[in-house]
C-alpha cells in the first residue's frame, strides 16, 4: 500500500467515523436553529459557522455526509449495474439484442427527463419524510443515469464476444450466464469503474438540483447537494472560505476513493 493509499484510507475512515458519530460529535442537531446567530463565521460554538437560518454548519456537514456518502454510491452502483446488464449483456449477446438495447438507450437519451421527473414528483405524495424523498431521488438517478456507460459497454462487450478467451471458455462448456458474469463482466471493469466514480459526484449534484422539482432531500435534512447549494451566488472565495468545506469534502472523498481503488486495479493488472 503506497503512502497515498494510506492517506486515502485515513481520510475515508475519518469521514466515515465522523458521519457515523455525528450524534456525538455535532454540537447540535442538524435542524436546530440559532436564530440569534444566523450566517455566523466560525466560532468556538460553531466550528464552521452557521447557515442562513442559524443552523450549525459543522453538524449539517456531518449529517449530510451520512446521507450522501451512503446514498450516492448506492445509486452509482445501481446505475453501473444497469449499464452492465443492459449495455454489457446486449453487446455480448449481439445481433438483435444489441440493436434493441441501443434503440432503448437512444430512446432513453431522447426522453424529456424534466417532464418525466415532474410526473414522478406528481405521483409521489407530498407528505413524505425527508429521508424517503432523498432515497427515492437517488434511486431515480440510479435508474436513469446508465445510458452513456451502456453504449460504451455494448461496444466493449461486442468485441469481447469474439475474443479467443471467450471462445476457449465456451469450448470448456461454460454455461452462457457464467460466461457473461465470469469472463465478460470482469473485462468491462474499467468502464464500469469509470461509470461508478463519475456517477457519484454527478448524482450528488443532481440531487441538489432536483430540489427545484420538489425531489431530493427535503428541509431540514442536509445532504452534500443541499449544502453545496449555499455556494450559489457567493461572490468571492476569500470572504467566507468556511462555506467551501462541503465542496472540499466532496472532492477529497471522491479522490480518496479513486486513489484507493485505482491502485488496487493497477496491482491486479
Amino acid at each position: 500500500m503506497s503512502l497515498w493509499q494510506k492517506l486515502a484510507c485515513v481520510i475515508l475512515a475519518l469521514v466515515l467515523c465522523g458521519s457515523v458519530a455525528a450524534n456525538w460529535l455535532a454540537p447540535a442537531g442538524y435542524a436546530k436553529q440559532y436564530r440569534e446567530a444566523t450566517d455566523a463565521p466560525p466560532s468556538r460554538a460553531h466550528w464552521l459557522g452557521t447557515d442562513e437560518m442559524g443552523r450549525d454548519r459543522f453538524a449539517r456537514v456531518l449529517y449530510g455526509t451520512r446521507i450522501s456518502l451512503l446514498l450516492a454510491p448506492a445509486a452509482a452502483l445501481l446505475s453501473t449495474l444497469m449499464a452492465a446488464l443492459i449495455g454489457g449483456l446486449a453487446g455480448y449477446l449481439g445481433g438483435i439484442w444489441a440493436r434493441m438495447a441501443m434503440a432503448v438507450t437512444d430512446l432513453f437519451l431522447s426522453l424529456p427527463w424534466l417532464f418525466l421527473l415532474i410526473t414522478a414528483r406528481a405521483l409521489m405524495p407530498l407528505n413524505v419524510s425527508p429521508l424517503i424523498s432523498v432515497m427515492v431521488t437517488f434511486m431515480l438517478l440510479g435508474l436513469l443515469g446508465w445510458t452513456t456507460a451502456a453504449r460504451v459497454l455494448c461496444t466493449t462487450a461486442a468485441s469481447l464476444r469474439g475474443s479467443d478467451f471467450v471462445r476457449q471458455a465456451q469450448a470448456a462448456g461454460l454455461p452462457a450466464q457464467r460466461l457473461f458474469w465470469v469472463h465478460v463482466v470482469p473485462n468491462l471493469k474499467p468502464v464500469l469503474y469509470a461509470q461508478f466514480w463519475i456517477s457519484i459526484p454527478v448524482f450528488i449534484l443532481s440531487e441538489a438540483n432536483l430540489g427545484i422539482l420538489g425531489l431530493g432531500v427535503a428541509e431540514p435534512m442536509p445532504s452534500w447537494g443541499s449544502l453545496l447549494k449555499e455556494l450559489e451566488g457567493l461572490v468571492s472565495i476569500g470572504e467566507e472560505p468556511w462555506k467551501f468545506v462541503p465542496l472540499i469534502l466532496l472532492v477529497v472523498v471522491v479522490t480518496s476513493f479513486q486513489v484507493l481503488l485505482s491502485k488496487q486495479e493497477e496491482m491486479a493488472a
Partner: protein
Amino acid sequence: MRRHKSGFEQMTNTCGTAISVAMLCLGFLLGHAVAQGGGELRFCLRTEPKTFDPLKVEDDASASIRYLTGGVLVRVNRQTQDLEPGLAVSWKVSKDGRQISFRLRSGILFSDGTPFSAEDVAYTVQQLMDPALHSPTGDAFRSGTGNVETNVVSPSQIVITFPAQVAGLDRLFDQVAILSQRSSKKEMAVLGPFMVADYKPGSSVLLKRNPNYWKTDEQGRKLPYLDSIHLDIQPNRDVELLRFKRGELDLINSLDSEYFDKLAATSPQVVHDAGASLDSEQLWFNEVAKSPIPNYKKNWFRSASFRRAISEAINREDLSRVVFHGHAQPAVGPFSPANKFWFNSKLKPQPYSSDAALKALQDEGFRMENGTLKDKDGNEVVFSIITNSGNKYRERMAVLIQDDLQKIGIRVNVVTLDFPSLIERMTQTFDYEAIILGLTNVDLDPNGEMNVWLSSSENHQWNPQQKAPETAWEAEIDRLMRAQASSSDPKKRKEAFDRVQEIVVEQEPFIFLINKNALSAVSAAVQGAAPMILSPQTFWNAERLFVGTK
C-alpha cells in the same frame, strides 16, 4: 389587481442608469430656446416590453414605458397616494358613481405636434372599452353590460358615462394614457414626459424627452430635465447588480434583501429602504371540500381555531429578521399599513406565542403525546407546505415555520415545486395541504382585490369558485365587498373594507406573514430621487430627475 408571483417573474422592474455626465442638447420649444442638460438615465427592464400600446399593457416592462411616455388625465402621487391633476385640471364623479366629467388643459400638443382636445379623450375611452380590443386596463372599468357614453361638451370638457357604477372611478384613470385620435403616428404620439425614440428588440429601448410635454417646474422650466432614458432589457438580476456597481446603471427597482445588503455593505448611500410595501407573503390551508386530501385534515384546515393557532405559533418577527434581514415587516392583515387610506389602523400585529397556540389547540381537543400533537381521533398532526422552488425567501420562511410548529408538536414537510406544478395543484387538482406564496399589489384600491375575496372567484385561493358561500363569514365578506364596490362614498367604502380586514384577521383564511419592504438603489449621480413603495418605486418622478447638473 393582485397577481401571484413566482421567483422568476418578479414584479415591477425598472432600474435605471444614467451614464455619462451632462450631455447638452438644444431644443427649440414653443419659440423659446431653452438649454436642457438633464443627461441620460439608464436602468433595466427585466423582460421584453410586449407592447407600446398603452391600452394593451399587461406586463411590467410595458407598464414602465407607459408610465414614462403616457399622458394621463389624473395621476396618483406616489408619495402622498393622493390623486393629482394631469391633463385634466379638474374632475367630478357623479353621486351614482357612473359618470365622470373632466375639464382639460388647453394648448397642449402631442409629441408629434398634433393638438390635444376632448375628442382624443373620447376616442381613448371608446377604444379602452371596446370589447374587441380586450384592453386589460379597460377591465377595471367594466362593471356592467352596455356601452360607455362619451359626451364632448367643448374641446376642453368631456363627460363620460359608464353603463354601471364603477368603484373608485377617478383613480382608475391613472392607468389610462390618452391616445391621439388624429395623429398618423398612432400610439407613438404621446402626451407624457418621454417618447419612444428607438427600440432594439431583445436589447434596449431608448426614450427621448418629449419636447411638447406640458409641465413646467416651480421656476417655470420645462420638464422633464432628462434628455433621454436608456432602458436595457436584462432579465438577469446578478448582471443588473454588477452593472449597477460598475456605474453602468443608475437605478434598481425592487431589490432583493440579499442584494440590498450586499450593496449596502460597500456603498450605503445608494440603497433605499422605503419601508413596508403593498406586497405580502402568506400561508394558507386548502379548504376545498372536494380536494383529494384526508377528511380529518380537511376538518383541521376548515377550522378557524386551528388556523388561528397556527398563525399564533408562527414567529413573524423572526421571519422578517432572519429571512429578510429586517427588510420586511410582520404582516398585520390583508392590507399593508403602507396603503395609507385603506389599511385598517385598528388592527394590530399578531402576537407570537407557542404556549397560547398550544393551549388553543388543546381546547379544541388536540393533545400532545410524547412531543407529537394528535387530534381528538388520534391522528398525528402532519401536513406539507408547498412553495415555488427557486425562491429562497419562501423556502426559508417555510423552514422557520417548520421549526416553529415543531415546538407545538406539529410535523411539517416542506416541498418545493416548479411553478407550473404548484399552480396546477393550487388551481386544478387541489392536491395540496398548505401553500406559501406572495401577492403583488399594484392597486391601492380594494376593488382590485374583488377577485380574491369574493367566494365565487377563481382567485379565492383557499376555496375558489364556491357556488354559494360555504361559511357565514365568507358570505359576509361577499356582502361587504359588493357593498363597498357599489358605493361611491369613500367613507362607506372604507367602513365596509375595514370590516373585511377584521374578518380576514379573525378567520385567517390567508395567514399573512410579512410585508416586504420596498428596496431600491439609486446611484449617486442621479439627483432628485425619492424612492417610494408604490410602483414605479425609483422613477415615479422621472420628469424631475436629472443626471449631473440641470
